[in-house]
């Protein structure tokens, strides 16, 4: 039994061995942490105590061509409660009194937004400045209540420029997928539509970083001394080609109608002077928290205020694009400036169908220019049959229809320019007739265009066939003063010779100045106007009213394209409206006094 027994010396020795083993293990543990893993754990210890806080840059300001504000920033105050500093029975009732929220609701919001007991939990965003003043002056009344300021976007809503300004919102999951920019993260601000989206990268600037030392409980102890903050870089300012005066005029001109759009472009360089989608919406509501019911109201509005009509509204261009067919006919040699077709007697028979002219008493025989003047459908039907579906489609395509204008705004629609391939697919090979060409020749049928495309086409006509790419940003002003002026760019040339263009321009002149012109009422003594009316057939209701005007006719500086939905004839509704916009432009250009003087003279 005693063969395992250790002597005293043996036990003593074994004790030392045990001791040595214990110390070796502990020493090994220390070496592992303090030497082997030291670097890694030192980083973790730093990360523990340093909180990286973004320093938000000032978002770029957007002005019109004369430097007047379109989009700027305003301070927005958020009121918060620090849970650890809240005094029961004092903080909440007082806050409830101030904000007009009941205490249970405030409690619910505090609980929802609490990160740590020492960090403010936001209760209400965008409180009025008067409340901030009360919080500041009577801080003793509100123990544990703080507020902070952030910059939010303010859109000049009076301009009705939402169709190009767009709006901003919080970065969403989809935005995260769409962009690979590291500067975007959930909850930060991003441009959602329009300019704000297109130029987001320039407008947003670069976020800075502040390093703040915090305790385990989240107490903020102040800036971390060893790491200086990285300052933010403010966003670039944008100067647009928009003229606020003209923009206001456009919006006011649309004011009396239900729905419509106006686009005004300088044909000499493609500068977008004004653009309104009607009805509009207030982009400011997206800058703050948008109430659920308001959002629902906007979304379900039958007038679709969120539809960007100039860029995404798809309408049959109607008679406004008769010039494409006539130009094509001239180029192809089907017609000459003086040639005529069979007379218009108020319509024509084709196959088993009777195609009406809009003027039931008929236009008689007309030359090309007079066909434009009077917008004779029968002339166009006969021309369309000769050009055929593909002939028409070719010229529509060459005039910019069916493809985007590449205006520097996002999500533009290309419209639809149908050809025989399209019809084969849609109706089946040989399942459609040449009669479709008749529809297309007067801008009806499947043909769909945006107001912007129609305006672009007329810019080409006004500028000797040279189409400048429409654009909205004139100048980018970097935060440190460096300016980039965006030079106008030729987009394409209309497929028309000088002679053809002369005929078309003569037609446009006659529409206003001719004896039978469909927009005779726009004629005035101060400046010459040319244009074209259009009445788009709308199977769902009253016709859409089109007018595209340009002035002064000898050297056009402005092309205004307008469509008023469900308003009837182009000559009755859209034409006077465009006249009003052009008048606003010319008044500004010539000086109000001169016009007033002339009017007084005319009155006498």
């Amino acid at each position, binding site marked *: 039994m005693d063969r395992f027994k*250790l002597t005293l010396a043996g036990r*003593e020795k074994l004790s*030392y061995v045990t*001791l040595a083993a214990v*110390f070796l293990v502990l020493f090994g543990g220390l070496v592992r942490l303090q030497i082997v893993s030291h670097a890694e754990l030192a980083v*973790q210890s730093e990360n523990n105590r340093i909180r990286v806080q973004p320093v938000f840059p000032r978002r770029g300001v957007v002005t019109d061509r004369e430097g007047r504000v379109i989009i700027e920033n305003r301070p927005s105050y958020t009121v918060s409660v620090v849970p650890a500093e809240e005094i029961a029975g004092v903080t909440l009732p007082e806050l409830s009194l101030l904000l007009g929220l009941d205490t249970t609701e405030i409690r619910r919001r505090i609980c929802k937004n609490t990160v740590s007991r020492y960090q403010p939990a936001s209760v209400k965003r965008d409180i009025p400045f008067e409340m901030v003043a009360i919080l500041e002056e009577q801080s003793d009344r509100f123990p544990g209540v703080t507020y902070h300021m952030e910059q939010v976007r303010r859109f000049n809503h009076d301009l009705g420029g939402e169709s190009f300004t767009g709006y901003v919102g919080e970065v969403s999951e989809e935005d995260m997928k769409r962009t690979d920019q590291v500067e975007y993260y959930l909850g930060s601000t991003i441009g959602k539509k329009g300019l704000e989206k297109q130029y987001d990268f320039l407008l947003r600037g670069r976020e800075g970083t502040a390093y703040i030392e915090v305790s385990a409980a989240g107490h903020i102890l102040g800036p971390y001394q060893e790491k200086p903050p990285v300052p933010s870089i403010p966003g670039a300012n944008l100067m647009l080609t928009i003229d606020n005066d003209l923009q206001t005029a456009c919006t006011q001109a649309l004011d009396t109608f239900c729905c419509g759009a106006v686009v005004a472009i300088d044909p000499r360089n493609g500068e977008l002077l004004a653009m309104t989608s009607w009805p509009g919406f207030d982009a400011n509501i997206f800058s703050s928290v948008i109430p659920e019911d308001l959002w629902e109201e906007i979304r379900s509005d039958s007038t679709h205020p969120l539809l960007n009509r100039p860029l995404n509204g798809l309408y049959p261009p109607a008679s406004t694009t008769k010039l494409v067919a006539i130009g094509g006919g001239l180029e192809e040699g089907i017609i000459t400036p003086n040639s005529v077709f069979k007379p218009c007697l108020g319509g024509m028979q084709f196959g088993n169908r009777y195609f009406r002219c809009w003027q039931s008493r008929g236009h008689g025989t007309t030359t090309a220019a007079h066909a434009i003047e009077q917008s004779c459908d029968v002339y166009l039907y006969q021309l369309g049959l000769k050009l055929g579906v593909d002939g028409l489609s070719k010229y529509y395509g060459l005039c910019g229809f069916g493809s985007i204008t590449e205006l520097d705004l996002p999500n533009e629609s290309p419209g639809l320019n149908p050809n025989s391939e399209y019809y084969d697919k849609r109706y089946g090979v040989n399942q459609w007739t040449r009669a479709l060409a008749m529809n297309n020749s007067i801008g009806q049928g499947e043909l769909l265009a945006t107001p912007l495309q129609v305006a672009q086409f007329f810019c080409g006509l006004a500028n000797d066939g040279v189409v400048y790419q429409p654009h909205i940003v004139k100048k980018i002003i970097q935060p440190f003063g460096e300016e980039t002026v965006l030079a106008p760019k030729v987009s394409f040339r209309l497929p028309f010779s000088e002679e053809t263009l002369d005929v078309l321009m003569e037609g446009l002149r006659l529409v206003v100045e001719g004896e039978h012109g469909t927009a005779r009422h726009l004629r005035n003594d101060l400046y010459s106007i040319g244009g074209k009316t259009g009445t788009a057939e709308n199977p769902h209701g009253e016709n859409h009213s089109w007018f595209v005007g340009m002035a002064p006719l000898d050297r056009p500086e402005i092309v205004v394209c307008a469509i008023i939905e469900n308003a009837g004839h182009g000559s009755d509704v859209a034409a006077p409206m465009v006249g009003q916009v052009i008048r606003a432009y010319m008044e500004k250009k010539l000086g109000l006094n001169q016009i007033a003087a002339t009017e007084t003279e005319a009155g006498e």
Partner: protein
Amino acid sequence: MILNYSSLDWKLIGAALGLSLIGVMLIMSAQHHADSIYKQEYYLRQLLWLAFALIAFATVVHLPLKLFDFSAYLLYGLAIVLLLLVLVVGTPRMGAYRWFSFGPINFSPSDFAKIAVLCAVARFLAYTKLPVVNIRRLAISAPIVLLPAMLILKQPDLGTSLVFFVMLFALWFWSGLSPTYLILILSPMVSLITASHWLAWSIYIGVLLAFLFYLRLGMLFGIYTVVANLAFGAITPFLWGRLADYQKLRILTFLDPGRDPRGAGYQIIQSKIAIGSGGIFGKGLFHGSQTRLDFLPERHTDFIFSVLGEEFGLIGAMVVLFLFAVIFYRAVRIAARCRSRFASLIVMGAASIIMFQFLVNIGMTLGFMPVTGLPLPFVSYGGTSMVLFWSLIGLIVSADYRWQDY
């Protein structure tokens, strides 16, 4: 009684005193940035406790060691009464009944029980006529420890009750029981762990049986070993079910600290970050960010060693390890030369108590021992434990001074 003070083991005393003063300094640093002045006074109170502890130490040294021998069972009885009492009238703190509260002073009877049980076991083993390897000898000495251990487990305080078992094993070993037997006595614990997988357990039982057969240890001992192993293997699932949630969590967290970094694993992770970030030279007194910014939990008590590791680095930690090594080395030397069996066992038992808490506490801060709540001897904040450990030092020094006595 006047002693010949120059004959006292000053190296041992110096090491313990050094640790105590380092502890006071670390407590000062641990609470240096605390919000309330009350907390900042911790180190002053620790100094006061140290004064009390030194008085206790001096008292123990001046009393004849025989006194502890004679009154061993009396002390033991008193300890049992106190342990029972604390379960009934103790003041609950964090769900545990461990303390008597006398105004501002909290007294934990389990610390007193450590000395009392030590004396009782030492007295039994020193005077029993039973041979060393005898099942009756073991069977009588075990319950002396088992009773207080169970009462402490009931508080509940698993860590402290383990201290008693470790002390018992140390005394069995020092009184001559071969490590082979110790291993076999402990073998059911292996069964407890391996039983979670049937194959591992089968292999283990096979190896155990072969080992027993080869050693031919005697009938009774062989039967004990086999029965105990089978029994432990069978009750493992049941036992796991009986553990409190916090105990399960501690075990699981110990096995994988990353599984719950904000909860139970948080302490271990933060402690490792603190020690590791200290590197070789440390961040300097009052400059440990983990300590200063509250990331380190229980930093003046259980995790005081992490404060040391962070602020004084490997070098500081080595100094503390060295001082402990001095204490253990001296203790073994003294135990080996004492002529009295009782004195020798007292020294070994006292050293084993200090050693176990030392190992478990530092092992915990380094992340390879579970969180048990055992303070680091001499260094951690706490009055009763300070008095206890200085009393144990007193017993060792006293045994050394009177080494020639029988």
